[in-house]
């Protein structure tokens, strides 16, 4: 049973412990300053076998874009759909 992890915190603030608490097959949504992790942390998350999504507005607001085939760029509708698909939701600020 997969968990949805919402990562709000910048990767400057110790992601290691958070990433180690995520299981392969879990879903991760990067939002707020968490989207900054797309630069250097995305590959580590993908290598772990998580389903990775990023909130588009937060990405664009910070001057980033992504065309990585394994990263889903979603809006709030997509955010809602993720929460429908996951009963357990953990947020990491």
């Amino acid at each position, binding site marked *: *049973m997969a*968990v949805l992890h919402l990562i709000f915190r910048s990767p400057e603030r110790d992601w290691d*412990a958070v990433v*180690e*608490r*995520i*299981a392969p097959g*879990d879903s991760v949504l990067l939002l707020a300053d968490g989207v900054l992790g797309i630069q250097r942390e995305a590959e580590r998350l993908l290598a772990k076998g998580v389903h990775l999504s990023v909130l588009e507005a937060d990405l664009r607001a910070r001057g980033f874009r992504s065309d990585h085939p394994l990263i889903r760029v979603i809006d709030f509708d997509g955010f809602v759909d993720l929460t429908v698909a996951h*009963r*357990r*939701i*953990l*947020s990491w600020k």
Partner: protein
Amino acid sequence: MRCLFVFRHSPWDGSRGAESLDLLLTLAAFDQEVAVLLLDDGVWHLHPGQSPGVLGLRDLSALWRNLPLYGIGASPWVEDESLRARGLQDGDLSIPVRRIQRKRLVAFWNRFDVILRD
């Protein structure tokens, strides 16, 4: 309903600790099955000998000691790595705890229906 309440912040972070414990105890008062997990700076809640009154904060240590009176009979879970990173051992803590390794947390979340946090 199986509930997990996760504490990740130190008890000296303004009213966060007091307000989180209020919510935890309200949850338990509703006869929900509540487990507590301390991660990262949340482990400091169980540091003995605190005097938060010096900072004008409510002393929460009695609440932690009396969790069973509020319907939370099982000892809190504490992550090994969080303790170790802070130079603490479970013998140093103010109440008995159950230890859990970080790598086991990945499956731990699935034991619960809903997860709250501080």
